[in-house]
């Protein structure tokens, strides 16, 4: 009972941290973009973004009114007790955060169009489980806005096109998305695995800080190439023109079937919201992304 309450409190805290305080790497990237942007209109947009981030922290208000779909990534140590209670604790935390932070209720029944009012419903919040060894529980939350989700895309390229085909797929997606995902965006790109696996990996890779590049130099090179190409489009901040269209690119992959080459692009808006905490076996909690800010 006590452990369950702890999980609920920690899930509530990281959700609150995520929607109010943007991670430092994202803030730094936006500041850099502001100093380097040459388009006058683009600069007004980046200025408004930076002002808004400060105001959100000052007034402890969600940085964006679209507090998103709530997605948890849980790394559960195999020796953690009461694993079956975690799901209900996370759901309770979501309901509480909706009321107390507050968050915008964003869970709608596709058939009736009715909003549940508390951000929960069939398969919401989303829970991604990973079983790891040990006795600690690591929880990460991402809250993903609708504007950037609406332009996410998965598809199948001809395997013979190889990495060139991947590059074209990604750059075409960026151009098609234009102003819609609230640029400057962060791109998660993944290939292989299957239609579902590439989509999942593309989204999950958005959890990486912008300062972290793929350890494989070939993939890191691809990340840089896509980054530079996307910033040549001229879409600019909010699609009003300028040189800052993406803040970063993360690439991940899985092995693929010889006949299939799935590619997926997940967009995150500039308000890239994520927070992580770890609960140790003795119940102590470490906030890994947001220190003790709650």
């Amino acid at each position: 009972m006590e452990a369950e309450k702890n999980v609920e409190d920690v899930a509530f805290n990281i959700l609150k941290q995520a929607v109010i305080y943007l991670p430092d790497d994202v803030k730094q990237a936006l500041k850099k973009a502001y100093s380097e942007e040459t388009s006058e209109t683009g600069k007004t947009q980046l200025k408004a973004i930076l002002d808004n981030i400060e105001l959100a922290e000052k007034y402890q208000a969600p940085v964006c009114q679209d507090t998103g779909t709530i997605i948890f990534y849980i790394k559960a140590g195999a020796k953690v007790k009461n694993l079956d209670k975690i799901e209900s604790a996370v759901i309770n935390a979501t309901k509480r955060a909706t009321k107390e932070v507050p968050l915008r209720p964003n869970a709608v029944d596709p058939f009736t169009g009715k909003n549940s009012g508390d951000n929960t419903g069939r398969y919401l919040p989303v829970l991604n489980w990973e079983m790891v060894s040990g006795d600690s529980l690591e929880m990460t939350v991402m809250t993903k806005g609708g504007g950037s989700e609406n332009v996410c895309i998965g598809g199948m390229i001809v395997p013979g096109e190889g990495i060139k085909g991947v590059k074209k797929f990604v750059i075409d997606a960026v151009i098609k998305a234009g102003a819609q995902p609230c640029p400057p965006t962060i791109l998660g790109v993944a290939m292989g695995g299957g239609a579902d696996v590439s989509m999942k990996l593309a989204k999950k890779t958005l959890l990486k800080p912008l300062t972290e590049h793929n350890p494989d130099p070939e993939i890191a090179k691809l990340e840089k190439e896509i980054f530079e190409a996307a910033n040549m489009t001229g879409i600019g901040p909010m699609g009003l023109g300028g040189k800052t269209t993406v803040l970063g690119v993360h690439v991940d992959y899985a092995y693929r079937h010889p006949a299939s080459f799935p590619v997926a692009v997940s967009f995150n808006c500039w308000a890239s919201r994520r927070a992580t905490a770890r609960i140790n076996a003795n119940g102590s909690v470490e906030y890994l992304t947001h220190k003790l800010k709650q």
Partner: protein
Amino acid sequence: MATYKLKTPISEEQIRKLKVNDVLYVTGTVVTARDQAHRRALEYFKEGKPLPLNLEGLVVFHCGPVVAKQGEKWIAVAAGPTTSTRMDIFEDEFIKNFKIRVVIGKGGMGKKTTDAMQKYGAVYGAFTGGAAVLAARAIKNVRGVEWFDLGVPEAMWIFEVEEFGPLVVAIDSHGNNLFADVQKTVEESKQKIYQKLGIS
């Protein structure tokens, strides 16, 4: 790139002065409407039913806010714009029927809306997507909420605002559309990008 400060109700004459890339701040009454409120308003018009308030000369905001209730009073906590393209299917009729003068949103709107803005005298003001607290600070009073049955994001919120902005005039009443201009530049850059990436 001139800066304008307008108060509602806004006249057609005032709106015709604005050109794309100008910066606009509005003061007065701003009404939120997303997909559902647009649809319902047009249904009401068709059936000859009056809207909860007269929108003539007012500002429509594509926004689903985060709100909190303090006693009997609603507070706008975070209220940035949503993607406007979803309202493209309604906006020309909306402008024509209700004589609104400013549409606030993000991401821009299409040809049909641009044409209606030219014909009837309205502009599209782009507010920075996600800048929700900046927007909320300019909302001085939540005057009311209508059509609450549509849910918090889709309901019609009536805000009293002071110097709400900066809004970049991205569609003016002379047929200019900044987003379409940018899109054209982007399309033109495509071949250069393909070349750089070694895609033939």
